[in-house]
């Protein structure tokens, strides 16, 4: 009965962790996941989010067993 949480890149470094598991009780949305995982910091509008590896918004519902990730703007490709 858990939700898997991942952080990437500069956000991962700043928070000092890349991966954690949260009990699913009381969590309804992506915003709830952030509030539980990072209680001392409001969710910034700069942070991108995904649920089960698909982009999502903060109000997207989250269920037991989901994987939720938070990360900064992406910078792939080249030139």
């Amino acid at each position, binding site marked *: 009965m858990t939700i898997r949480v991942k952080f990437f890149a500069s956000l991962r470094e700043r928070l000092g962790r890349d991966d954690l598991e949260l009990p699913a009780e009381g969590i309804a949305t992506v915003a709830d996941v952030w509030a539980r995982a990072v209680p001392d910091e409001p969710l910034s509008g700069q942070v991108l989010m995904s649920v089960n590896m698909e982009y999502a918004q903060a109000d997207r519902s989250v269920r037991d067993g989901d994987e939720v990730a938070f990360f900064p703007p992406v910078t792939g*490709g*080249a030139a």
Partner: protein
Amino acid sequence: MTVRVTTEPFDPYAELAAYTPRGEAAGIGAAALFIGYMRDVNEGDAVASMELEHYPGMTERALEKLREEAVSRWRLDDALIVHRVGALSPTDPIVLVAAWSAHRNAALEACRFLIEELKHRAPFWKKERLGDRERWVERNTPG
């Protein structure tokens, strides 16, 4: 494989030489290619090396989705995306995008679409090493 993420250096021309595009060979009139390389300068600073982080699983899914979008929108015969991750040095190829179609317009437009959308949608992040310090690349260059 039509979408590949690799930690190993790759030679884009060898990739292309080894790849047989899908579809009827005699029906393909055009191939458009884009190759992106690592530069040794960014935002006016000398860059010694780079670490390319990604979200394994989501990256492949995002690239596959982009490829499918391009193939269906421009009715391509085929499209190929190869992207490097991990530790890179200047001059290393970072990304190869190729599109094959009956006519040049579809191939060129699809190739452009793939590289631009990849930069905005695929979960890759670059961290540059500049002499004795490091910094995350915060945004894409305009092109």
